[in-house]
């Protein structure tokens, strides 16, 4: 049921109300410094019957099923009841745009301004430093208008069209919204950003998940659709069960009994009557994870090579189920650190976000990076709208997608409007490789693709592959042979058709790659929009400078020779 376009419910005729449509006719919702947090931290405020206790009798008992809504002014008795409810509690009025409100929900996207009875109370809220609310970043208009708190008291009437709250519905919606908020922040060099972000915003439409699609199974669990019938493998179901547990049984407010979480998760899977080989897999994984948590095991393997679901849950348990800790680096000085794959980290972060929920998610994780207040409000407004839509309180769900520019920058688009640029992928630069680059004064930088690249000269790069314990570094030397995106003589970029290679060029390239004596091969690099020559090299920071530079010169020389092979 929706109230988005419904009529404003006038509970009383406010004294001094002006003609319809004037500012004095605006819809007002009474809130307080005790209850406004949900609006500012989650983007939407719902009545206490959804499970959002305000700790003030006025709301929790008298206005349990809907929000105290008025027009023009609120009765003086309401403000008095708030002040008398708790020490240092004070009323705050939420003024919404015109007739776009309901008594079931108020969304940040509908808020025109917040009104305070005096300057001191405004300052108390504005200057309060909370980790999950940043009123300054939202830049909502905040005004002092004591007269709006002095309306005539009336007996409230009950709304008849209120959506009936579902048990646990708000918690689930809050959890899924936290995933939406966190996704642009979750580091990935390998996974498909666009699809994950768009799927999270359209979670209602998630019907079935492919085998190995950990993200899909995570969303399935978050929506409480667990059961082996929906999963081909044990790993798929493990992810769904873990997500369900994070939402329903282990929210952040309940603490983190890590050993119990592991026990409950394994037990819930064993109840399905698993085949013996799956029971054995679970037993081994549980034993290893338990030892790690007790501080008796060795550093676990947490790379992306296999078992992402198992490894993500182990990592989540190790990091206290805390989304900030999951996202932080694990690099230690000597390279003996825990090495966590980007997908493992992303999966663990999403489980942790489910546990945290949008409301309690720290602002540094839920707000876009380096953006202005308009963007923050737009993003938080959309997140709040998504919660209201999940609860069935509005029908229009925000459409969120990701657009990629020509140069690989990705932007979040809400209802067709570009809102902010996604943070660049965070890639750790290997310390040994960094030392090598420093020695030769090469610029070394992580790329959106997840590669760490040192620029040796114009058109020549070294792409980091791995470092070994003996100090040697495996790199791939990449030299541009043919620029496929060069501007035309007229200054325009070539059309996609113009970038295509001819069959003749392709066959010449393949011939080059067939030469047994050649140390490298020719390839196409979409990221560089070029035909490139790739040569694997093994370099040590201890090698004489002449030897390192000679190896690179050799690659350049071969690349120069090859240019004639592929030129049109």
């Amino acid at each position, binding site marked *: 049921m929706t109230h988005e376009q419904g009529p404003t419910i006038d509970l009383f005729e406010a004294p001094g109300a002006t003609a319809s449509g004037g500012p004095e006719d605006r819809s007002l919702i009474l809130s307080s*410094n005790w209850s406004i947090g949900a609006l500012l931290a989650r983007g939407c405020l719902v009545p206490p019957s959804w499970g959002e206790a305000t700790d003030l009798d006025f709301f929790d008992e008298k206005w349990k099923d809907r929000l105290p809504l008025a027009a023009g002014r609120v009765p003086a008795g309401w403000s008095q009841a708030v002040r008398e409810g708790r020490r240092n509690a004070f009323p705050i009025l939420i003024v919404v745009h015109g007739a776009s409100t309901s008594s079931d929900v108020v969304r940040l996207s509908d808020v025109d301004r917040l009104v305070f009875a005096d300057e001191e109370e405004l300052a108390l809220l504005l200057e309060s430093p909370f*980790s999950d609310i940043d009123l300054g970043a939202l830049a909502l208009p905040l005004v002092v208008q004591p007269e709006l708190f002095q309306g005539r008291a009336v007996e409230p009437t009950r709304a008849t069209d209120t959506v009936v709250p579902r048990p646990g519905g708000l918690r689930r919606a809050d959890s899924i919204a936290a995933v939406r908020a966190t996704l642009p922040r979750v580091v990935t060099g390998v996974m498909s950003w666009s699809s994950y972000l768009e799927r999270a915003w359209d979670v209602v439409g998630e019907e079935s998940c492919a085998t190995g699609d950990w993200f899909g199974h995570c969303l399935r669990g978050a929506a409480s659709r667990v059961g082996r019938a929906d999963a081909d493998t044990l790993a798929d179901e493990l992810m769904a069960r873990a997500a369900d547990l994070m939402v329903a049984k282990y929210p952040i407010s309940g603490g983190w009994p890590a050993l*119990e979480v592991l026990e409950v998760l394994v037990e819930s899977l064993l109840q399905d009557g698993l085949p013996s080989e799956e029971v054995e897999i679970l037993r081994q994984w549980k034993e290893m994870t338990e030892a790690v948590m007790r501080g008796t095991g060795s550093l676990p393997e947490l790379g992306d090579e296999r078992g992402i679901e198992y490894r993500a849950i182990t990592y989540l348990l190790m990091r206290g189920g805390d989304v900030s800790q999951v996202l932080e680096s694990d690099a230690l000085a000597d390279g003996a650190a825990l090495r966590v794959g980007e997908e493992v980290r992303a999966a663990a972060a999403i489980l942790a976000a489910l546990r945290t929920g949008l409301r309690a998610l720290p602002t540094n994780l839920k707000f876009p990076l380096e953006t202005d207040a308009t963007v923050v409000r737009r993003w938080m407004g959309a997140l709040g709208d998504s919660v209201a839509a999940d609860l069935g309180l509005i029908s229009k769900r925000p459409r969120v997608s990701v657009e990629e520019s020509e140069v690989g920058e990705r932007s979040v688009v809400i209802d067709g409007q570009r809102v902010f640029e996604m943070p660049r992928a965070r890639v750790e630069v290997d310390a040994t490789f960094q030392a090598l680059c420093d020695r030769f004064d090469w610029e070394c930088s992580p790329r959106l693709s997840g590669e760490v690249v040192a620029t040796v000269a114009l058109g020549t790069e070294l792409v980091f592959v791995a470092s070994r314990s003996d100090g040697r570094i495996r790199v791939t030397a990449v030299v541009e042979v043919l620029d496929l995106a060069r501007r035309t003589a007229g200054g325009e970029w070539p059309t996609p058709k113009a970038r295509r290679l001819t069959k003749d060029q392709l066959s010449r390239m393949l011939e080059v790659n067939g030469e047994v004596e050649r140390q490298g091969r020719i390839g196409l690099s979409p990221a560089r929009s070029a035909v490139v020559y790739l040569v694997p090299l093994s370099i040590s920071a201890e090698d004489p400078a002449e030897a390192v530079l000679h190896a690179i010169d050799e690659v350049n020389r071969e690349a120069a020779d090859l240019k004639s092979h592929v030129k049109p």
Partner: protein
Amino acid sequence: MRLPAESQLTTEQKEICFAPSNGTTLVVGPPGSGKTVVAHFRAQRLRNRREQVRLLMFNHVLRRYTGDAETFLKWIGGWWREATGRGFPRASVEQDGSYRTVWDFRGALKAVKDLDRTRFVEKGHWGHAILDEAQDFERDAHRLLSVMQKVVFAEESVPPSLMILADENQRITDSNSTIKEIKEAHILAKDDCYSLTQNYRNTREIAQLARHFYVGTLSGTPELPTSRGDKPVLLQTDDINHAVERIATYARLNSQQEIGVLVYQERTRRRLFNRLKSRLGGDGVRVQTYRSKERELADTLQFDEPGVTVLCFASSKGLEFDSVYLPELQTLPVGADQNDLTRMRLYVMCSRARSRLTLMLSQGDGQAPVMDLLPIDADFLEEEL
């Protein structure tokens, strides 16, 4: 210090966070109830208003922990000199047959009536002072601040304000103040006082164990938190090296955690620090320590950063860590006249842990006497062999 999340604040914490900033406010609460958090919150809020705020701590480690605080004695010395043009009164007291110089708060109180009031009002306005662990300040220090605020600045339109946070259950010596003495010294009305009763720091399992050691006084038994965690573990270690091995393995696996290693004896602190430093230094895990005789070390401590911090229990007051290890517990004194004090020490040490607590005993062949003070109920403490 971590800022509190609005969504996670308890009702009683919210009442204090939104309390007016004028006059004097007393906040009483047990360990982990969030006294230091509300102190930090209030300081931050006042600074956002560009008001002058002093966050005053008793001990050096806590001062470093909060990041933006100073010790009470250092502040009051400078403040007195600025306001009066003289040094703070000192007195000699006999202790163990020798004399030592101490701050003479009673002398300062007597000196107030002879002060140049105009100069004092002009230069002695401290703005807003927040006193954390205020039970550790002696009662005459409280009386001095109260007299200043209520007599010297009585006619000022905006007299200096005070927020006092205390828990008399954490008093270490007899010269500390009780809550009753603090209330009397500051002439506090009921409306000026707030109580924090809920445990905000520990898990339910850790609080249950800490409660076993609780020696109740006025601030009351803290309510058990609802937040869950793993059960505390009692580990029998072969010797100190075994303890070091276990702590080092855990620290390597949990490189994102703040780990506290709290001990009773100074000698144990030094040995553990040296061995952990040598064991973990090569792994890039930060290991730090502090001892009260080297106060400058407190300035090098880093909190809210991952790593291992080795401290004697007295320096751990007000601090918190993700995981806490209490090795070499057999060194704690046990006996009819010492049991209450030992329980109080165990209470303080256990309640430093946010989510994980491990008690360690190297007791050789016989049973260490301290075992008699530990709970026998397996629901409280899981024994790991």
